[in-house]
């Protein structure tokens, strides 16, 4: 249609008459879009990264027997088979899970006759260092795979005067066992006073074959997602009590909300500033186009048509700035992710359309100054009075 091709011809002229201004407006929109998409992408990534960082806190889910787990030996225990029924992976991340059996036994350094009571924790499963974070002050890798290997807490090591490589004698209720220390661990918690042996050793000492006191898991996920994990697992294990460790869950949730709020409010502020920037450019456009609009009206262009012309211009600018800026922003966020979290942020494709749409909306809103053009009276403009 003739009028449509005319429309686009005028449109092209509008966009290309002043390259300097086109550049400034595109730069503003592009920069706004870039910051928006970078922050949005970082926001989605931050949650995931922080869940990983928070796992330095150790286990966040604990499975205990149904009855109150108050008494130790002879108290309620779990069946060892539960351990193999747990999911190994949750939301694409491996779940470290370790079963513990606690025995209050008597311990002495090998070759010595004086025994002292200590907590012996039999462990079984993958990821002891993840569920029980600490610092291994001594560590002999070669000994770790020994069938009689054990690890000793720093405080217990000082008490029994043992180092990595030494052997320990363990006994309880007439049962006896031996183990070889491969590491000394400092956690700052109760673990510092415990001795970590293979599960079989502890079970033998306590006469509790195939039993566990509890299982600790470290699930890498957001607080809500961990809650869902606990609920599902609770249903699958009717005989056990699955609960989250409240100490860390609450603080984690609060910190997520703070960061999320910070990033979203910055995105809002940046979009607002972008629209200020574009508005400044557009008000220039309005001044410059008085004559053009006057002419259009004088030769019979309706107000609606004129407005449509400028709206199309704003949308085109928004799309152009948005497409380029958002792409740049996503690239920048990959690099920023590396700077902040040490791991490159994953680009989320959903961010791209969202950020382009936001930019187009901002661009349309910032075309507000052009509304002045609608009220132009051609005769006055041509006389140079308006």
């Amino acid at each position, binding site marked *: 249609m003739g009028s449509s091709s005319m429309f686009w011809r005028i449109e092209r002229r509008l966009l290309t008459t002043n390259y300097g201004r086109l550049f400034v407006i595109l730069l503003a929109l592009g920069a706004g879009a870039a910051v928006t998409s970078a922050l949005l992408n970082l926001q989605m990534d931050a949650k995931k990264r922080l869940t990983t960082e928070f796992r*330095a806190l150790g286990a966040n889910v604990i499975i205990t027997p149904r009855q109150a787990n108050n008494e130790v030996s002879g108290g309620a225990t779990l069946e060892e088979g539960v351990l193999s029924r747990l999911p190994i992976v949750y939301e694409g991340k491996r779940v470290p899970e370790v079963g513990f059996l606690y025995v209050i036994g008597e311990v002495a350094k090998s070759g010595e006759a004086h025994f*002292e009571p200590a907590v012996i924790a039999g462990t079984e499963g993958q990821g002891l260092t993840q569920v029980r974070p600490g610092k291994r002050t001594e560590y002999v890798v070669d000994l770790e795979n020994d069938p009689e290997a054990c690890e000793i807490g720093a405080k217990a090591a000082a008490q029994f005067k043992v180092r990595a490589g030494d052997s320990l004698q363990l006994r309880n209720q007439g049962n006896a066992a031996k183990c070889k220390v491969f590491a000394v661990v*400092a956690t700052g918690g109760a673990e510092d*006073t415990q001795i970590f042996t293979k599960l079989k050793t502890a079970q033998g000492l306590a006469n509790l074959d195939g039993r566990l006191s509890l299982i600790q898991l470290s699930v890498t996920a957001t607080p809500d997602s961990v809650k869902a994990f606990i609920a599902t697992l609770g249903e699958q294990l009717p005989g056990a009590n699955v609960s989250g460790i409240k100490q860390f869950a609450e603080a984690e949730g609060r910190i997520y909300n703070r960061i999320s709020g*910070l990033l979203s409010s910055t995105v809002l502020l940046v979009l607002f500033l972008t629209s200020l920037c574009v508005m400044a*450019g557009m008000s220039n456009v309005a001044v410059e186009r008085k004559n053009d609009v006057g002419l259009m009206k004088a030769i019979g262009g309706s107000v609606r048509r004129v407005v449509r012309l400028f709206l199309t211009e704003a949308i085109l600018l928004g799309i152009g700035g948005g497409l380029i800026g958002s792409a740049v922003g996503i690239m920048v966020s990959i690099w920023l992710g590396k700077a902040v979290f040490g791991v490159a942020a994953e680009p989320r494709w959903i961010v791209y359309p969202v950020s382009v749409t936001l930019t187009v909306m901002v661009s349309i809103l910032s075309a507000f100054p052009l509304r002045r053009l609608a009220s132009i009276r051609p005769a006055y403009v041509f006389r140079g009075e308006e």
Partner: protein
Amino acid sequence: MFLRLVADSFTRRPRRKILSMAALAMGMAVATAALSVSLDVGDRLAQEFRSLGANLLVTPEADSLPLEIGGVDYRPANAGTYLPEADLGKLKTIFWRFNIMAFAPILEVPVEVGPAKPNVTLIGTWVGHAVPVPDGTSYVTGIDKTNPWWHVEGSWFKEASEQCVVGTEFAKSSGLKIGDTVSVRPNGEVGWRALKVVGILTTGGPEDAAVVTPLAIAQQLAGKPGQYRRLYVSALTKPEDAFARKDPKTMTQAEFDKWYCTPYISSIALQISEELKGTDVRVIRRVAEGEGNVLSRVRTLLWLVTFAALLAAALAVGASAAASVIERRTEIGLMKALGANSGLVGVLLAAEQLLLAIVGGGIGYAVGVVLARVLGERIFGFTPEPKIFVLLIILGLASLITLLGSAFPLRQAARYDPAPILRGE
């Protein structure tokens, strides 16, 4: 004449000036808010992380090995050594005393709860306890501060009263409600002691199956007046860096001084053990490391976001400054036609822009302080204090950016040939 021209330009087209001033003020308001929030929030964030719980554990140095499983010590009350409660005020005299946010001593006693419920753990501790500090003041602290995730339905017990708080599991299994009375006695003894239940405690830990009382009651039950067995300390620390991980024993004197005077968790631990004799102060690694990792990440993120906001503000202010110069092409043309040289025109416009920047920056600062308040309260739950320092930065920034923003169109204006502009081309 110069001043009249500047004044005229403001009075003759007030709407234009108000518009560009508004843009400038908005941009600077955002910059102010971003700066004030991030300047204040670093410390607040560190405090936020204290909700993770205590990061230092103090135990007697020469002690039999605690038989602790799931937070409960299974040693009999007469085994092992104890620490004096009277020393605790000294915690607030160490070099980094203001970084000690809270502390709470713990004394556990295995008790029998009447009728016939043996082997219940009774935990004695402080809640809202005023600790006398050697300098004559007192400091109020307790387990409610060190372990903020402990929720009490009802209320905490009062110090120096026959009250207690019971764990939720224990309450359920013995059918206790707030207002009931429980009688307790140490395992194997005769006399009962009646305590009024004033609250139900939920911790998600072993305390859910315990009875919690004021420390004094636990001391009397255990026959250990004025003593405790474990102390939890919550300290504000600087995340550990490579320097902090060095062994203080291998440091030179200068390095040691620097380490000692930096609030690393390890140096605070050393200072506490110097003050409290006969103790072993251990870093609760999972809390200290988790906190350190996340805190340093979040700090970087915060500065990044501030930078992004500042950048956007600079762009907006620069663009509006550029726009206000472009608008006045005709005027510039006229001035030049009347014989003004480019330099004079430039100085005139720059003076105008500076005036605009200072007034707009000032207004922006005022608006930004309010915005920072709103953001601070909504996101971080605190109000950032307005700082004069930020005002100076903002005014400087506003002047710099408006000048830079106008410089480009001004340079173009210098090249204008007056005739075509005046003809409207």
